Each structure stands twice: as structure tokens, then as C-alpha cells.
């Protein structure tokens, strides 16, 4: 028999720690939610979840063909096959960016979209942003799988540094999760944030070296690369997957610390105000 005392003072530090525990207690719910979000897009198609892998595969193949064969832009020479240039470079940077974009644009709406869960049942709302972020990272993983398949076919080898990717993905998860929590709060209280966010995300696409190589940034704009966590993320993905190199040690530590801090702030803010969501909707 469990005793639950609901008082007028939620959001205490103990309650916040307790909601970290709910991630474990409600792990099945999280799993089903992620599964459902993954499956929804492909429900009713004949290939079903296979599309989660096929769709990014088609995209990376298309990128490779268009940018390397047709347009022929080259930033880096690849031993063996010179067709492997800009398409893969672009796609490899796009994968973490798309995960970030999806996590944020979904996160900002997550409370409103699930208003039934917020208003009509007792529900740990803190798992909602987590499920959207996990879904986006899972799609990220499928995208990486497709990229690696193409790399294996074209280069006949993969760099061992790919095994270190989890060291980047964990802080990536914390960073996007922290941002999602902040966005979820902002989007619930101020609906206009949702529109603003789309523009903001689009802007970050252009100021992050995804389309353009980080090495070519002019001196006076170098802060766009140096102080941009997304630039680090994109760079780290490319270094580990395409070049077989390690991202800078200090930069990695700064990025991880920043990610932990963003998660901490986002999680605490979210837990402080989540009890008011039902009144807000």
C-alpha cells in the first residue's frame, strides 16, 4: 500500500530527484511511447519500420549522387573513390542537426499535444520530452546506420573511431533533452514561442558549419564555430565517422559540461512548473 501526500508545495528538490526515478519506474511506458512515435509515420505502409532505415538510406544515396556526381563539389579527398565527397560530408553533419531540430520542434508542442494526459490522468509529464528526444535520437541512429552502410560499400572500411560515438551521443542526449524541457515550458506558457522557435532553428542551421566547412570560416566570425555547441557536435560526428580522428579533448569536455548544465537547468525548471501545466491548457 502506497501513501501519497499531495501538498501545496510541489517542485521541492526531493520531488525533482524523485522524478529522475520515474524514468526508471515508467521505463515500459517510455519504451511504448517511443515505439509508438517511431511506428506512427510508417503505420499502414507495407514495409513498416523498415522505412526507418530505408528513408535515410535513400537520402544519403541521393546526396552522394547529386553532390558528388552531378555538381561535383569537393571539400575533402577520399582515398579510393573521389565520388565520396560533399554528399557524405553534408549528410554526416545533417544527421545530428536533424535530431536536434526534431527534438526542439516537437518538444515545444509536447505538453499541448498531450493535453489529455496532462489534464485527465495523473501522468508524469517529465517523460514526454524524454520520449520525443529518444525518438529523434533513434532516428538519428538509423540515419547513421544508413551512412555507415554507404561508407562500407564505397570505402570498404569503417574507422574504429565510430565505436567512440556513444561518448558524443550521451552529452548530445542531455543537451537536446535540457533544451526540450525549456522549450516545453516556454511553449506551454507562451504559445508564440512555437513560431519563433522554427525561425531560430532554421537560423542555427546556417550559422552552424553543416553546409560549409568549419575551416573556411573567416577570422572575425570564428566564434560561430568556437562557441557553438552544435558546431562541435557536427564536427565530432564528422571526425569520428568520416575522418577517423578524435575531436579535441578540451572541446569535448566543455561540450559535455555544457550539456550537463543545460540538462540540469531544463530539468529543474520543468519540474518546478509542471504542476501548473493542467491549469495553463
Amino acid at each position: 500500500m502506497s501513501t501519497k501526500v499531495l501538498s501545496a508545495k510541489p517542485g521541492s528538490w526531493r520531488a525533482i530527484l524523485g522524478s529522475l526515478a520515474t524514468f526508471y519506474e515508467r521505463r515500459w511506458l517510455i519504451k511504448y511511447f517511443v515505439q509508438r512515435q517511431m511506428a506512427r509515420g510508417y503505420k499502414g505502409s507495407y514495409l513498416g519500420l523498415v522505412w526507418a532505415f530505408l528513408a535515410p538510406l535513400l537520402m544519403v544515396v541521393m546526396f552522394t549522387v547529386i553532390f558528388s556526381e552531378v555538381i561535383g563539389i569537393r571539400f575533402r579527398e577520399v582515398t579510393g573513390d573521389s565520388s565520396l565527397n560533399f554528399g557524405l560530408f553534408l549528410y554526416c553533419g545533417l544527421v545530428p542537426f536533424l535530431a536536434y531540430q526534431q527534438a526542439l520542434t516537437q518538444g515545444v508542442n509536447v505538453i499541448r499535444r498531450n493535453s489529455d494526459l496532462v489534464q485527465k490522468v495523473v501522468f508524469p509529464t517529465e517523460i514526454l520530452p524524454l520520449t520525443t528526444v529518444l525518438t529523434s535520437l533513434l532516428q538519428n541512429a538509423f540515419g547513421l546506420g544508413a551512412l555507415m552502410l554507404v561508407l562500407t560499400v564505397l570505402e570498404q572500411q569503417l574507422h574504429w573511431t565510430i565505436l567512440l560515438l556513444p561518448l558524443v551521443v550521451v552529452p548530445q542526449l542531455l543537451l537536446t533533452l535540457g533544451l526540450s524541457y525549456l522549450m516545453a515550458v516556454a511553449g506551454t506558457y507562451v504559445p508564440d514561442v512555437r513560431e519563433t522557435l522554427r525561425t531560430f532553428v532554421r537560423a542555427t542551421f546556417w550559422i552552424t558549419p553543416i553546409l560549409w566547412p568549419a575551416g573556411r570560416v573567416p577570422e572575425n566570425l570564428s566564434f560561430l564555430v568556437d562557441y557553438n555547441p552544435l558546431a562541435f557536435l557536427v564536427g565530432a560526428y564528422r571526425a569520428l565517422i568520416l575522418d577517423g580522428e578524435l575531436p579535441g579533448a578540451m572541446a569535448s569536455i566543455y561540450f559535455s559540461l555544457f550539456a550537463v548544465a543545460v540538462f540540469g537547468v531544463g530539468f529543474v525548471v520543468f519540474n518546478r512548473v509542471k504542476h501548473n501545466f493542467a491549469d495553463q491548457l
Partner: protein
Amino acid sequence: MPAVSVKGVSKSFRIFSNGRDRLKEALSFGRKKYGRDFWALKDIDLEVEPGTTLGILGRNGAGKSTLLNIISGMLQPTSGTVEVNGRLVALSGFGVGFDAEFTGRENIMLNGLILGIERQEIVERFDDIAAFADIGQFIDQPIKTYSSGMKSRLGFAVAVNVEPDILILDETLAVGDAVYKETALQKMYELRDSGTTILFVSHSMNTIETFCTEAVLLHEGRVLASGETTEMTDQYRALVSNIKAQKNNERSDGKQAPTDIVVPDEEGEGLEAWSSKEGGATSSTERRAAAPRACVAGYPEG
């Protein structure tokens, strides 16, 4: 140890005449006030012993749903405390979290997990739930192919088949045809007789009289009276006819009588309608505020 213990609970909603005021107040961080408070509940004390079947009576907008939402933890009280001992399942909406694209089978699992039931337990009780919902072959069809009655049956089936210690039912018997109602009522009696504490809201006096062991009468956010069921239903009927008479008087006078009873409209005044639709809410509260302050016989003034 009481199953549910409510101590001095009040709940106020902030009312803003428009969204800009809401934002201005939020940005001033409590230094300026642009809205005003609407007290949906005032100083509610309630002890429910285990095994009690408590009927909750009151007109639309009396605060019934708000009280139940606070007890179940969906809303936070503005002041006061609520203590709940045991597993509580609240049914204020059926099949919350149902996903139309997925099958009944998948949704039973999803809905159960949303209600906070262990996965293992749902697996074990799956057959009971499916049998109770009585939707036959449809269990493996997407929910979007269901009729609305089938959907609510499925939702009801999940909630009552997981043996809650405390069950909160809000107008829930209103779904389904006569045959199903019979089954549902049967199940509720079963739960009651097995010692489940039930908090029950219905506008049907008959159901409350036959089903509940105790009742509490809410009026304008306060407990007007509580005790034996038939006594409460009698009081409620008296209250309603009182208000009706008052309303008729006003009509025949053709002008606002100098009455001391607030006569809310039949629709729109309900807190349910009120909290979900912001636009309509403001005007209805303004009407409420403009009406003379209330005092009905036996109703404690505050």
C-alpha cells in the same frame, strides 16, 4: 487510516481578461496583478474511510470535478493537503491516451501503462480486460474503426480490472447501451463489495441513492453538508427546487429580482466547460461576479 483525507483544500484559478494580461503578470514575477482569482473550491475538509462509496452531489460548477481532480493529483490545490492511501485510479475521461492508429490490444497496454499499472500486471489481466470490454474480434483492429461506445468500454475495462484501492468515477456510467450499463454497474457493485473505496459523481439521484453508502453535497466550492445518502439527495433536491423557484420568480418579474441566490446558467457555468474554454470562461465569470453574492438556507456564509 482513511483512504482519502482532504484537509483545508482550496483551489483558485487565475482569470485574465485576455492573453496579454496573463503574460504581463507572468513577466512581472508577482510584482503586479492583472488577473483575479476565481475560487473553485474553498476550505474543503473530507475524510473517506476505506470501503466507503461516496457520492458527490452538486450542481454544475459546484466544484465536483475540481475536487476529484485534486484528489487524484491532476490539479494541485492552492492551499491545503490531500493524502491518498492506496492505488488510485481516476476515470474522468475514458481511454485517455488511446491512439486511433493502434489496435485495441496495443491500446490496452498503452492505457494501462499511462494509468501507472505495471506491465506484468496488464499482461496477466489482459484476458479479463478483453472479456469485460466485450468487443470481440475488434480487439485486433485499430481503434479508429471502433464506435464511441466500444472505445469507452475498452477504457472502462482497463481501469476497473486492475483492482484499484480507490476508484474515482466522474459521470462514467453515461456511456454505452442499456446492456452494457448493466454490466458496468454490476462491476461497480462487485468492486464496492470487495472493499474498494469509490468516489462517485453522477447527476442521477437514483444511482447515487442505490449505490453509495455516504454522500457529500457541494455548493459553490464548499461542502454544504455530508452524511447519509438519502438525506443528502433530499437536501440536494431541495436546493435545486429552491433555485428553480427563484429563477421562475425572476422570469415572472421580468427583471433581476433582489435575490440573494446566484443563478448560474445551465450550460457554460460548469467548471468543466469553464476551464477548457478560455474565451467563454471570462464572460461567464464576469456574469457570475456581477450577480449578487450567494446565500442559500443552510449554506455557510464566508
